[in-house]
């Protein structure tokens, strides 16, 4: 293949002064600025570009747009490798390296095209019939080979080194499609005063006008409108951008590609969420192929695409062309091919043809066959001859190019995505969008206006309508007309059913025979047909195959097209890289990170950090042990024997103020708060409306009308929102304000027998005696000019204090405690030790408050007593929640030396078959240095009594361990250590 052997000597919209080097499967080739990869390949005489999905049949470039089923390539290497890109959509760039797909060992010689010989086995439903049911085991064996044989390009495994962006944009009028309709709409809307976004997937605006002969009136029209639009300040012309999704509220999802991003230092792709006041859909139409035997051979192309290659890219894909059509549109391709020097034969399915077209054909020396269609093609890796069948019998015509046109399908994909079914229109034999929602308009081919004149006129009206919908009503000059574009409307018909391997879905290798087979086997619904045959399930989503398949099924069923219906359209319209949707929210930026005021200290002092929701918390400190298991046991000892310091800033903190504050708390907590004295704290449990436990925490009464509530770390946001809900919607009469102060306070727990001495040394101005600060008491003071609250509370079971200080003084207060605490043996401890300490004490936490347990399940029922009138009180009395055999909280003590209990293990009674859900499960475990054994908390059925033995089975760890059922309070049941 000599370089650019098929390039015409002149013409086209390419820049011949800017040649670009690129490669295809390693061959060095040259194209020009303004080429697509597809046009450059065609110019270089590359006709074979891929192998088909199932049969590995040779395939060539079929279209010139997003509908391309065949010419899928892989670009880039390593982490930049991107498969399944339509060559027709890739703007040629210098140094571009493309590879063909699904061929082995090479594109020209593919041993797997032997698959064709086995084709009968690969027909519709092959996978289901062969490998499901009794022969399912065979699938296990064959899957590997089938997956290797059938497929598309390979995805990259390495991390993608490129940058992607997600951004938000706004417009009064968004226009999808930059062809004559979209341009005309943009001009009208902009003149009316609207802020306009014009979205075009191509790198040039103009749509079908780009396929008109250079120097034509249409080309001049395009230039004039583009110039006018560029003069407006708030018209954004978004080329290389595809509207892939339509969402509620006139929101569009747009993907912009930059294939030269690396060179210009920009994001490779950007995903834009565009919020528009109104939308004009002007995405045009997609030409339908014809279904006949061997219609997939390289050299068969859509007629409009051939016209694009000839006029826009100055490429003559073949010198001996057959044009097969059912409508007037494709005649223009025949005329332009003949004018460019090709020898053209035209076969029109219609018996009666327009005299004007015939006269022009005759003038250009085109042989016209009326009432004729293609019956079969000859040729393997390139088409060699077409067998034409008509009233006068069959003739064979030598050719190297076959242009097909079965009419046009409006692109109803986007407008149908919100569930608005497209509507069949008999006069155009196609589907148009269903009724538009408020603020949505259609123009041009999308709504069946196939001529350029209609596109300009409907675009103009839609542009004015959309602008006016947004309140922009400045007077608009008349539409710029384009006289030459008024072609007679096309007539459409279905081609007779073909024999032999005639493809309906070229990408998925679905033939007319497959559809007939599906029909014979009872798959009549189009949704079933799609899944049974895999029709329309490729990366092109059946853009060219949808309508031919529908007509075939309609014909088989003897039904009309509207009776047959369409499949469901879902986003995205074209494939989207996951990277574009993620933008910069990857790795560390995947979600926000919350750090406590003492975060830096933890890092500097060897903490191993743990993600808890969005928070980073110290898991354990490496100074205490080599790994977490060694460290947490050591940290527990510091707390039990001297003093420990824990960062508890992540607790939810809510300030509750107002004359009715006590009433609010009395209603939302299951246990009473109305009588809590000022200066005292109380542990409280909240229920949901349905009577299940919601959250627990402590609330301190700072004044007659002021409380300080804490919640669990996990439920902080939910509790705040719940309080606000009740006050805003149900108890509007209560005079209370709640506000989250979680981030305002740093919080730390000082726990252990020497905790009081540490605090006294750290805050010498405060009286921390047992009289001044008894258990469940609070004192307030100042540290470093910031507010200080010390509440005497214990989670670990030891004498303990919670120290709250203004967040900006948190690190200083922590540092002070560490410094003065050292002589007393104070050491920091992490989340793992905290959890272990509370398990020893039998305190419940998240694993037990799991959204299924009640107060009685958790042994907290006695806190409530005979109270009523609190949230969840009525529905907690549901009979099912009081069943005697419900699982309730118990303790477990491991009975086997050298073995451990595991969280999540299923509990079985001794002798019970170890299957199913057992009698309960372990929720939390720890090694107890005090008891010298593994202990755990569990939820266990009521009929397994205290003192009984159970077996804890963890199948994934292959463990079965015997344990005693005991009280959940393993340590100090009388609570004497609180005062130690």
């Amino acid at each position, binding site marked *: 293949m000599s370089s650019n052997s098929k390039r015409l000597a002149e013409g086209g919209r390419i820049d011949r002064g800017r040649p670009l080097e690129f490669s295809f499967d390693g061959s060095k080739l040259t194209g020009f600025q303004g080429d697509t990869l597809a046009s450059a390949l065609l110019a270089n005489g590359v006709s074979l570009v891929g192998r088909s999905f199932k049969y590995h049949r040779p395939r060539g470039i079929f279209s010139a747009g997003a509908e391309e089923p065949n010419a899928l390539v892989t670009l880039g290497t390593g982490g930049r490798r991107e498969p399944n890109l339509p060559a027709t959509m890739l703007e040629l760039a210098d140094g571009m390296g493309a590879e063909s797909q699904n061929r082995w060992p090479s594109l020209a010689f593919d041993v797997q095209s032997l698959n064709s010989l086995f084709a009968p086995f690969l027909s519709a439903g092959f996978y289901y019939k062969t490998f499901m049911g009794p022969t399912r085991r065979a699938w296990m064996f064959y899957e590997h080979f089938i997956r290797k044989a059938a497929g598309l390009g390979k995805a990259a495994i390495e991390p993608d080194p490129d940058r992607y962006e997600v951004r938000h944009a706004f417009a009064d009028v968004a226009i999808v499609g930059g062809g004559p309709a979209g341009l005309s709409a943009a001009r009208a809307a902009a003149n009316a005063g609207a802020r306009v976004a014009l979205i075009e997937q191509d790198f040039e605006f103009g749509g079908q006008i780009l396929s008109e002969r250079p120097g034509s009136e249409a080309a001049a029209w395009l230039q004039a409108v583009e110039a006018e639009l560029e003069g407006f300040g708030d018209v954004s012309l978004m080329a290389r951008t595809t509207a892939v999704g339509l969402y509620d509220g006139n929101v569009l999802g747009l993907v912009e590609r930059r294939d030269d991003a690396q060179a210009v230092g920009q994001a490779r792709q950007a995903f834009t969420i565009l919020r528009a006041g109104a939308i004009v859909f002007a995405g045009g139409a997609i030409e339908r192929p014809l279904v006949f035997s061997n219609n997939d051979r390289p050299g068969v192309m859509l007629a409009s695409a051939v016209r694009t290659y000839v006029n826009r890219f100055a490429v003559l894909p073949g010198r001996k062309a057959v044009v097969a059509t059912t409508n007037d549109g494709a005649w223009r391709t025949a005329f332009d091919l003949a004018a460019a020097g090709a020898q053209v034969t035209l076969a029109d399915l219609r018996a009666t043809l327009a005299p004007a077209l015939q006269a022009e054909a005759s003038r250009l020396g085109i042989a016209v066959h009326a009432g004729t269609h293609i019956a079969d093609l000859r040729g393997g890796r390139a088409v060699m001859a077409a067998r034409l069948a008509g009233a006068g019998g069959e003739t064979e015509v030598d050719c190297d190019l076959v242009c097909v046109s079965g009419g046009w399908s409006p692109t109803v994909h986007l407008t149908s995505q919100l569930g608005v079914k497209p509507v069949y229109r008999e006069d155009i034999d196609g589907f148009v969008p269903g009724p538009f929602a408020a603020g949505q308009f259609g123009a041009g081919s999308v709504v069946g206006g196939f001529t350029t004149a209609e596109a300009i006129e409907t675009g103009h009206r839609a542009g004015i309508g959309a602008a006016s919908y947004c309140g922009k009503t400045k007077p608009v000059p008349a539409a710029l007309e384009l006289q030459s574009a008024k072609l007679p409307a096309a007539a459409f018909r279905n081609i007779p059913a073909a024999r032999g391997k005639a493809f309906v879905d070229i990408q998925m290798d679905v033939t007319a025979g497959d559809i007939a087979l599906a029909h014979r086997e009872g798959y009549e619904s189009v949704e079933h047909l799609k899944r049974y045959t895999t029709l329309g399930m490729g990366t092109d989503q059946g853009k060219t195959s949808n309508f031919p398949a529908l007509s075939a099924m309609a014909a088989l069923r003897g039904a009309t097209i509207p009776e047959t219906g369409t499949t469901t359209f879902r986003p995205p319209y074209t494939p989207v890289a996951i990277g574009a949707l993620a933008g910069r929210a990857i790795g560390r930026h995947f979600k926000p990170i919350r750090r406590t005021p003492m975060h830096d200290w933890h890092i500097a002092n060897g903490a191993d950090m743990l993600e808890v929701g969005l928070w980073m918390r110290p898991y354990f400190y490496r100074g205490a042990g080599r790994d977490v298991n060694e460290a947490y046991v050591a940290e527990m000892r510091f707390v039990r024997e001297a003093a420990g310091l824990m960062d508890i800033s992540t607790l939810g903190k809510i300030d509750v103020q107002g004359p009715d504050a006590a009433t609010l708390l009395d209603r939302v907590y299951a246990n009473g708060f109305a009588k809590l004295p000022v200066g005292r704290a109380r542990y409280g449990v909240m229920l949901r409306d349905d009577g299940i436990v919601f959250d627990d925490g402590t609330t301190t009464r700072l004044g007659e009308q002021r409380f300080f509530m804490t919640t669990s770390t996990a439920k902080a946001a939910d509790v705040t929102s719940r309080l606000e809900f009740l006050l805003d*919607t149900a108890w509007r009469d209560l005079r209370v304000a709640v506000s989250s102060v979680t981030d305002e306070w740093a919080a730390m727990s000082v726990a252990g027998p020497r905790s009081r001495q540490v605090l006294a040394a750290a805050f010498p101005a405060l009286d921390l005696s047992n009289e001044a600060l008894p258990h469940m008491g609070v004192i307030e003071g100042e540290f470093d000019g910031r507010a200080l609250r010390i509440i005497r509370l214990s989670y670990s079971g030891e004498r303990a204090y919670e120290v709250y200080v203004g967040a900006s003084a948190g690190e200083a207060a922590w540092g002070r405690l560490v410094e003065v605490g050292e002589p007393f043996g104070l050491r920091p401890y992490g989340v793992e030790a905290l959890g272990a300490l509370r398990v020893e004490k039998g305190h419940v936490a998240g694993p037990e408050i799991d959204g299924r347990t009640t107060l009685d399940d958790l042994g907290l029922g006695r806190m409530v007593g005979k109270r009523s009138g609190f949230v969840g009180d009525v529905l907690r009395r549901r009979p099912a929640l009081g069943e005697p055999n419900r699982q309730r909280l118990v303790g477990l003590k491991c009975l086997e030396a050298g073995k451990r209990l595991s969280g999540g293990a299923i509990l079985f009674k001794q002798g019970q078959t170890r299957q199913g859900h057992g009698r309960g499960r372990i929720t939390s475990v720890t090694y107890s240095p005090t008891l010298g054994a593994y202990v755990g908390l569990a939820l266990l059925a009521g009929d397994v009594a205290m003192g009984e033995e159970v077996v804890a089975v963890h199948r994934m760890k292959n463990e079965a361990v015997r344990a005693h059922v005991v009280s959940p309070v393993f340590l100090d049941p009388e609570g004497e250590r609180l005062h130690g």
Partner: protein
Amino acid sequence: MLRIDCPCCGPRDHDEFRYGGDASVTRPAHDDSDFEAWYRYVFVRKNPAGAHREHWQHVLGCRQWLIVERDTRNHAIASVALARKPPTKQPPTNKSPARKPSR
């Protein structure tokens, strides 16, 4: 993507809001011990195809709870009001709030 026109903050994306359930059900008084009333409030829903009154909270904004009337078929929002200041035509809280029939 819904946009909710918050009476305090103006039109905002729905991802700034927290959904709070059906606003057409009436919460029994806090000390109402009628089991049936609580059962209906917590579990019984109409699930209409059409206009639906529902609670949304502007959590990433003013934190007000709102009553939004949304068409469940197409997400069109007919009205947005503060839950705290119901329209004056609303009946007192011990009766079911007025509900428009499904369109």
